[in-house]
């Protein structure tokens, strides 16, 4: 999923302080799972903002809505009846949701309330870690299901660097060496020979090197 973290409240306040009527929009997908921008977080942020502006003698009107998916124009359409009442929109979705709203409601300013972080998985309760950088040419089939692009600090494709120590990355003990994980996994699978294969210079075009990416499925297009 796409992970996110709420922005510092002071930054959000700076964004919305010129406005009085705010449409605060959450998303039921990824940001709900990583507890950054779901219905619950929408409620909490609305209360925080109310309190802040009340202390300043300003009565902020906040419409709270949580959409099924903010990155889907079909669901973003549901905001239409509420748009006229708002001076500005505050989105708690990832950057994809913010931009979907911005492209649908061009006459209204939309602000992000979260920082979109990475594509990751939950390691344990309250901990999410990066697992994929969307390089567009998945090599997990060769590396035993562990991604060197996302999990090696240097995106090394042919084994670890000299900085690996006791299975940890040199950037810090909290980061496992991806190539130690890959090697152990390949050993478990009896596929050590894959480690010997030399990976040539990676084609980074599918990773975004050739500009913004798009998937066009003609079989699904209307």
């Amino acid at each position, binding site marked *: 999923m796409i992970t996110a973290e709420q922005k510092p409240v002071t930054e959000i306040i700076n964004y919305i302080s010129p406005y009085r009527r705010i449409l605060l929009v959450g998303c039921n997908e990824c940001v709900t799972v990583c507890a950054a921008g779901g219905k619950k977080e929408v409620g909490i942020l609305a209360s925080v903002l109310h309190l802040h502006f009340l202390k300043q003698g300003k009565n902020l009107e906040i419409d709270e809505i949580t959409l099924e998916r903010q990155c889907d124009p079909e669901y973003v359409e549901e905001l239409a009846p509420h748009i006229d009442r708002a001076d500005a929109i505050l989105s708690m979705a990832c950057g994809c949701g913010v931009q979907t709203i911005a492209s649908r409601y061009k006459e209204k300013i939309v602000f992000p309330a979260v920082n979109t972080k990475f594509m990751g998985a939950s390691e344990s309760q309250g901990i999410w870690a990066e697992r994929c950088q969307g390089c567009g040419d998945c090599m997990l089939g060769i590396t035993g299901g562990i991604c060197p692009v996302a999990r090696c600090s240097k995106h090394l494709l042919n084994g670890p660097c000299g900085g690996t120590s006791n299975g940890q990355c040199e950037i810090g003990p909290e980061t496992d060496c991806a190539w130690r994980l890959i090697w152990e996994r390949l050993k478990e699978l009896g596929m050590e020979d894959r480690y010997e294969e030399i990976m040539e*210079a*990676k*084609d*980074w*075009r599918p*990773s975004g*090197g*050739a*500009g913004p990416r798009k998937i066009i499925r003609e079989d699904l297009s209307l």
Partner: protein
Amino acid sequence: MGFQKKLTKGEFAVLAEINTPKGVDISELTMNTRFLKSRIDAVILPDMDNGIMHMSSLGSGAIMLQQGLEPLIHVCGRDRNRMALQGDLLSAHILGIQNLLFVQAEEMANSDHQDATPVNDLDEKGLIHMVKSLNSGKDLSGFELSGTPDFFMGFAMPSILDDTQLEKEMEKAKEKIDLGARFVLTQPVFDLDFYSTVLNKLTPLNIPVISSVFLLKSVGMARYMSINDPNCRLSEDIITRLRKSKDREAEAIEIAGEMIRQLKEICQGIKISALGWEDRLPTILDSAGL
């Protein structure tokens, strides 16, 4: 007299752009520049121009110095991050390269290494800010430098289509000048009347403007430019003149020479691009009376 001194004193500067080799054979590079010494003020050295991997502008700049020519090197953010850029610029300064031209690089997608990952750590203003910081004795992280460089930097302005675009470019140019850019290089001129009006409107920038002249090597090239880059305002008259000429090479050189002579009256410097015909540069200079 150095390029920087000439520009600062308001004298006319002559620059020639030379492509660097794709390989380690520098004989053509040195041969083509041999006859330029004392005739031009600086050699412009692109860095992976048009996204084609070549010998870098840093190395070729050093070779130009060995040849007794002052280099002006391209700097762009596509291929290096701020660490590499700063390190290379310090190296450049030590080697004697002080003139920098910031350019927007061709997209990696259009390069001859399309599968490479583009860096783009710093944009053009970021690059100028970086050099300003180096010139003040600190790197981009604020750490003190041991010995402060003194770079002379300028930027390139795209072809101007109309007043609306010019206004936008003026805004961008002002920001770059505020950051420390000292000269501007404009795109190839084919329509002198229109360019004169643009040049007049650039006066408030209050920095030297260097105009560019392209050698139209063939009718095909001229036609291609006129169709694919209408902003360059290459007229049908010029194409016809080239097409009808009995000696098209001599005519192309004469067209470039004429343009340079006329531009000399209205701008503060000229950049000549021979686009692979660098061996004809002395003849172009003869034709221009330089």
